[in-house]
């Protein structure tokens, strides 16, 4: 274990303890939990892991360890940390997207949910399409780089007796930055929720999203953002300090939740992220802030 201090004023206090012993072959995953944002800094290939600077090869393993640690307690911790609000965000995300094959449309939809190991968004989207539009044809690829998180999703599908061994739903271990088993121009809807923050190279992830989408397809992303109200921000910052403590109480894991808080701080501002979406080639990009900007839904259209 070792400690680093962060210099940046806005970032949370440091005290990150990277446990390299826990490194696994796992990386990003949809989750409110830890993550990192990679930025190339100078000639040495380094990047951010929370507020710590690490070598580029190392961070995928570090994030992997974080997600393996939290996979089992994923749901409980999300509820505790967001006080249940994450369910509202995800619900809003699904209702706003309002996707599904309409009774009089010709083609079914092909979804891909990236970093969607736990399956909540993917199952939510399919349920929405079925309940609202009687759509039982659209297909779903649930991909995650982390096999442990993906197993959680499969377990959930098995427990709810739906979408397990379903020809419409496929679980795939895939790196979101490359998606090498997904054909280009094959998907209608690309969703990623609380996952893109953990990509090693966010721009590469966006470029790949553009590649796999068909013309007319939509990129839809739910991610933490920046709180713009100073008063709410004050409360939010205090809350962020408590999160790792709660992580250690509920999931017996202080470090992973510390990474979470820091990766949120490191994520680009909404305008900056919007510019990245446009840089990948998407048009009509926009975003909507949720709960004073704690979260934001970003979107872009492939023309």
């Amino acid at each position, binding site marked *: 274990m070792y400690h680093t201090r962060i210099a940046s004023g806005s970032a949370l206090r440091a005290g990150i303890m990277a446990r390299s012993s826990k490194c696994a072959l796992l990386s990003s995953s949809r989750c409110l939990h830890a993550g990192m944002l990679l930025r190339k800094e100078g000639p040495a290939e380094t990047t951010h892991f929370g507020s710590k600077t690490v070598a580029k090869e190392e961070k995928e393993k570090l994030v992997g360890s974080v997600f393996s640690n939290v996979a089992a307690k994923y749901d409980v911790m999300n509820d505790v940390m967001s006080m249940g609000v994450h369910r509202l965000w995800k619900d*809003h995300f699904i*209702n*706003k*997207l*309002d*996707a*599904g*094959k*309409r009774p*009089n*449309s*010709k*083609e079914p*939809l092909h979804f891909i949910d990236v970093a969607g190991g736990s399956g909540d968004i993917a199952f939510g989207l399919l349920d929405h399409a079925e309940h609202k539009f009687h759509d039982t044809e659209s297909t779903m690829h649930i991909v995650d780089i982390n096999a442990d998180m993906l197993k959680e999703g499969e377990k959930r599908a098995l427990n709810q007796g739906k979408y397990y061994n379903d020809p419409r739903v496929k679980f795939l271990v895939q790196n979101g930055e490359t998606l090498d088993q997904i054909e280009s121009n094959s998907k*209608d*809807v690309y969703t990623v929720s609380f996952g893109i923050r953990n990509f090693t190279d966010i721009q590469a992830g966006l470029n790949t999203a553009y590649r796999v989408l*068909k013309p*007319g*397809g*939509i990129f*839809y992303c739910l991610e933490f953002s920046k709180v713009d109200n100073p008063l709410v921000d004050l409360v939010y910052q205090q809350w962020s300090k408590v999160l790792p403590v709660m992580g250690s109480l509920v999931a017996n894991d202080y470090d992973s939740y510390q990474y979470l808080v820091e990766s949120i701080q490191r994520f680009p501002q909404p305008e900056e992220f919007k510019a990245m979406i446009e840089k990948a080639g998407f*048009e*009509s990009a*926009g975003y*909507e802030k949720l709960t004073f900007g704690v979260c934001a839904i970003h*979107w872009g*259209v492939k*023309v």
Partner: protein
Amino acid sequence: MLALSRILARRLYHPSALEHQLAHSFAPLTYGPGSTQFKVLEHALNKHVPSYGFNERALVASLNDLDLGPSLLSVIGASNSPSFLNASPAVLELIKFHLVTKRYALTKELDPARTSSPAEPPALETLFHRRLELNKPIAPHLTQLLSSLSIPGEFLVQTALPELHRLSDDMVYFSKEPDANDFAWYSKRIALSCAFVSSELFMAQDRSANYADTFEFAAEKLHNVSKLGQYYNNTEEYMWYTLLMSVNLAKSQLTRS
């Protein structure tokens, strides 16, 4: 509340002439006439809304006609949120599209930013009449449209009300109606908005040939607005007169003593 005041302030803060001269195309829509969204919505509004009304069926029929997939519905609705009655965001966008494009159609010939030889400014009544004419194809579905517009929520605050006020503002600005630079600037626009909404409500129920009753009703409403304006001016004049007279009376009394 803050959001509401900010939105209203954007338009109503001051009668800024510059605002009308910006070379924007179809703001607040986030896509231009060349985009897929625009093509689908325009097709739906012209071809299918008159028969199906403002609903997803019209949009899906257009998507099928244009050989496009249903993911476009999510694309179209992206900038809206579902209201608490769970109206489809794509349908809300269709409604927004109707309001915005009709408003632009009204002033296309008059706006120096969009035409090299702008026509002579018409009377306010003419513009008002012309805007109601544009509602004719969708008149059987006006009830549905107006109820969607008046559902309390984000759409009402962010789109329906600002769009109504922009319409009134455009009608005053692009007509030869004399404009005021005092508080009457606001009262005139509010009165015009009220007259327009009540005319639309009347049109929704109108079964007369070629909506003749609606236009009669609208003319009367507008007449009331101008009468109200006259009352306003007369009252203002009288108040000034009384104020100045009182000051002068006081002055003269003070000089005498």
